[in-house]
């Protein structure tokens, strides 16, 4: 079922088996030919949000132009077809994550809402006061704040596994926190949005399970760069956000084991998530609908479906190989720049590179680069506690996508040299 909808709407589909050609791929992304401040756009901020291929843009336009109505509740043709389109993306996502069942896929607005859903529903509905939630030092705020709110509202303890100086999860410390901690749930990133570090997901999950804890992976970054397989890593919850995976904003995904979803009380109440309503008492629809209150992000799901098709057509193997090569090149090139420090040197890392520079604040670096059309991010990257751990206020961050080129990395390096002399 995967691929059909997107393939249909896609302009200039790649021929399967044809080798990865980044120039061809860039033609699928209209925005990449834009200029910024008179310079050709070099977009190295994909970890914040990725650009969208024409297939995604077209899929959404096409739906609005030819086949749109509200879903689930309509008996007429437009509603039936739109329901089919929306629901078929559930199949695509299930297949993307290798989930055992499509009914385990819940659509949310983004990663943030997905984690909040788990924090509210599993957190208050299943976890008991006194139990702990264990996160790591390298989490995004989205995987910190919901647990703090749960701690303060529900009496959960919040434990934090440290990261090593190399920017990897400290496995020994992680294990001893699990051993001592009465941990009900581990919630941890699958790939850091600051350091590029991949967590060894299968080992981390096995340890959590050995100590009786469930485990949630924040796959916001990971799922963009490598295939994620929730069964292979033995996850209990897996979340990601559509806009980083070349899809539109407004759509995210929570996957959870069916038996967990079944035990979880609903989060938001309203239309579509009910089985019956009376003023005295309402009963809930079966999962996943129990967790999708109100009119869902129909067009955004359709856009996400097209994005998944697009990624599948290129293939994760090709994407990972291309991005690995970019990352190696970037690490090598940036290392030669005097006074530039790359933050984190994990063994297993992807194309997200944070750095600082002597005498130049991250903000100033970003502004100077922007002046030449190069978009990087600067700041704490929604990971303030990690910044504290690293003794930093902010970093500049360049991040890569399947459309990034080696030449763009060279342009970055060249301009960073100029930044250095500018501030010297």
């Amino acid at each position, binding site marked *: 079922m995967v691929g059909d909808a997107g393939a249909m709407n896609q302009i200039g589909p790649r021929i399967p088996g044809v080798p990865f050609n980044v120039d061809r791929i860039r033609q699928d992304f209209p925005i990449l030919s834009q200029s910024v*401040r008179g310079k050709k756009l070099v977009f190295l901020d994909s970890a914040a949000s990725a650009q969208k291929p024409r297939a995604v843009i077209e899929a959404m336009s096409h739906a609005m132009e030819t086949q749109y109505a509200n879903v689930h509740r309509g008996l007429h043709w437009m509603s039936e077809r739109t329901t089919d389109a929306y629901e078929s993306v559930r199949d695509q996502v299930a297949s993307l994550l290798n989930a055992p069942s499509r009914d385990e896929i819940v659509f949310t607005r983004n990663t943030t809402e997905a984690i909040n859903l788990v924090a509210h529903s599993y957190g208050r509905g299943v976890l008991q006061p006194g139990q702990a939630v264990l996160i790591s030092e390298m989490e995004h705020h989205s995987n910190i704040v919901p647990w703090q709110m749960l701690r303060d509202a529900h009496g959960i303890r919040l434990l934090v596994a440290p990261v090593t100086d190399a920017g990897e999860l400290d496995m020994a410390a992680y294990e001893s926190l699990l051993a001592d901690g009465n941990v009900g749930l581990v919630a941890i990133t699958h790939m850091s949005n600051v350091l590029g570090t991949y967590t060894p997901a299968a080992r981390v999950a096995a340890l959590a399970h050995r100590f009786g804890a469930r485990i949630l992976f924040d796959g916001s970054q990971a799922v963009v760069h490598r295939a994620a397989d929730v069964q292979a890593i033995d996850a209990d919850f897996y979340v990601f956000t559509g806009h980083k995976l070349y899809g539109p904003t407004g759509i995210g995904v929570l996957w959870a084991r069916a038996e967990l979803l079944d035990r979880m009380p609903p989060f938001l109440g309203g239309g579509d998530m009910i089985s019956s309503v009376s003023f005295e008492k309402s009963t809930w629809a079966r999962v996943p609908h129990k967790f999708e209150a109100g009119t869902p992000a129909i067009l955004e799901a359709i856009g996400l479906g097209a994005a998944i098709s697009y990624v599948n057509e290129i293939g994760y193997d090709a994407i990972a190989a291309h991005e690995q090569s970019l990352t190696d090149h970037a690490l090598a090139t940036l290392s030669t720049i005097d006074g530039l420090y790359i933050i984190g040197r994990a063994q297993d890392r992807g194309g997200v590179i944070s750095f600082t520079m002597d*005498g*130049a*604040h*991250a*903000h*100033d670096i970003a*502004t*100077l680069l*922007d*002046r*030449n059309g190069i978009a990087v991010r*600067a*700041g*704490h990257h929604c990971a*303030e506690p990690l*910044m504290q751990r690293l003794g930093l*206020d*902010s970093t500049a961050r360049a991040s890569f996508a399947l459309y990034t080129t080696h030449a763009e990395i060279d342009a970055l390096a*060249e*301009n960073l040299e*100029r*930044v250095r002399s*500018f*501030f010297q």
Partner: protein
Amino acid sequence: MSFDAVRDLYQDVILRHGRNPVHMQRLEVFDAAASGDNPMCGDRCEVRIQYAPDGAVGTIGFDARGCAISMASADLMVEAATGRPPEDIRALASDFYGLVRTGDTASENTALAALKPLSGVAEYPSRIKCATLPWAALLAALDGQTEASSE
């Protein structure tokens, strides 16, 4: 490729004050102090002031971490504001906010001249807060508060 185009923002005076802020010092004795935060980026600026006997702001010191723009802005602020009565400083701040938001000013406040090098920030909306951060802290201190509210 060069950065000539950013000279509007990073004028020499800003680079100089950004690199070596002359007035970055923590006053050990002070009458009021307030901090400002730029949560987006982790910039922070604490301003301490001593009042002169006539009620004017006699001495200003700041302790900050941040980008060249915010450091330079803090340093230039101290030069522009020292010795002035609070109401003058408030008026100057208001003129300064206008300057960095629009890139220009109709004000005839002569004290503003020294701050003009920061007008280029208007072209970079996300950097305006860098320039206003020290002023927000100073205004909070004048109001007897300890934290500048992040606008």
